[in-house]
């Protein structure tokens, strides 16, 4: 019975109509998780998700959206509100946010769009869905304190340029500070050599 289904707040509903997606991605019925938006609201940065009224200022002002047919901040926010959890967290487009914060600064509803998207990325990361480039940055951080492995030649060159020696991170102290954060799991599947993936062009 339909009313029974809706009476059970925990029920996972089948979405009747595909949502409108931008560009070439074809909309298909997806599983809707009505509790998902409450999960997002509890993640730091996700608090303002609920205030979005879909005006589209974010997408129209987004520098990335102008050159991507996949990345649409408004759609991401709407998908999160609807509870299309897998479609958002599994996506590649989630990682295309440039964190320029134009959307956040211009949203007439005060939605911190870039921070909501960051919260979604944090949720994806907790489930192990992480682009390789980020794994390398984190691997370098844990090893050296910097997100890049600064080559010895660069450190030497500082002398030639008469720059002061580069301070070395106290990695032991850093490790102690980070030991209770559950971040090691982010490194699963990390390539052995950082040269295998371009980190910064």
């Amino acid at each position, binding site marked *: 019975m339909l009313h029974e289904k809706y009476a059970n707040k925990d029920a996972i509903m089948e979405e009747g109509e595909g949502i409108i997606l931008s560009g070439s991605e074809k909309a298909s019925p997806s599983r809707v998780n009505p509790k998902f938006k409450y999960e997002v609201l509890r993640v730091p940065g996700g608090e303002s998700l609920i205030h979005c009224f879909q005006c589209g200022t974010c997408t129209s002002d987004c520098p990335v959206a102008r050159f991507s047919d996949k990345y649409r901040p408004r759609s991401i926010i709407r998908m999160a509100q609807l509870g299309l959890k897998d479609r958002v967290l599994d996506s590649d487009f989630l990682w295309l946010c440039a964190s320029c914060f*134009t959307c956040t600064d211009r949203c007439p509803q005060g939605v911190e769009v870039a921070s909501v998207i960051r919260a979604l990325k944090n949720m994806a*990361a907790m489930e192990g869905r992480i682009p390789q480039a980020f794994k390398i940055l984190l691997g370098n*951080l844990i090893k050296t304190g910097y997100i890049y492995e600064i080559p010895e030649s660069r450190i030497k*060159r500082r002398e030639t340029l008469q720059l002061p020696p580069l301070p070395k991170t106290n990695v032991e102290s850093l490790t102690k500070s*980070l030991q209770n*954060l559950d971040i090691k799991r982010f490194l699963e599947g990390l390539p052995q050599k950082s040269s295998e993936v371009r980190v*910064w062009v």
Partner: protein
Amino acid sequence: MGVAGAKYTIYLGCAIPYRVSSYELSARKVLNRLGVELIEMPEFNCCGLPLESLSHKLTLLLSARNLAIAEQVGLNILTLCPGCAGTLKKTNKVLKEDKVLREEINRHLSKAGLEFKGSIEVKHISQALIEDIGLDRIKKAILRPLKGLRVAEHSGCHLSRPRKHIGFEDPENPKVLKMLIEATGAKCVEYLGETECCGSTIAAIDDKISLSLVREKLLHVREANAEALITICPACHIMYDANQMRAERMFGEKYGIPVLHYTQLLGLAMGMQPNELGFDELRVNPSKILERALEAKQRT
């Protein structure tokens, strides 16, 4: 902070020691000339910004650790990277206001004998120049006004966004870098899309999009007949200078726009020599604009 004897602990971050020494070199030179004293910040780590996509908590902790170290040094932080400045500022503000979060972060830091107290401030070099040193003092240090030079500015997103955490600059109509440029005597021209992002943060995720942003910016700068693009961020500089040739190859076009750090432009106006300011580290040949700058008559 008064005019004379400005003193900070300098936080370099990762991108500058990794590959933008021209910025560090020229910044240290001009700050020294302006009487600013810099104390090296010991044992710092990444500000946390690039890893915020993975874990917000990690970013808070990394930046809080840097703030705690600077508190031990007992000086306000000066950064050359707006991304570092923004992240440190934001964490500083959030942890000062949120006692529960501060206690949580301090529990992590205490494992390494550190504590965030909230006793210092963070400034990007542009904010320090405009607020602590002041335009008057900068103008007095100009020995070779760059009269007749036409340049374009690119402040970059993180210098002013998100507005509620940064505060000293208007993201929709940025003026600080413009005023700093005009203090050198050069003309700062307007162009389409001045506040557009450089795309560096997604360069490792989608090359085509970030280089499309580079292309668009450089075309607009060229349309405005600017002789150079002036940046004040290491990441923006990498995109427009080091990656300019990659964009040229990708789109089969030629841009040829030199990209200077603001501190290089200021150094030239102060009468310094290009080799002191790291000009030989630039990828796009700056010889034309250097010639024009050095033409400017040295004031005696």
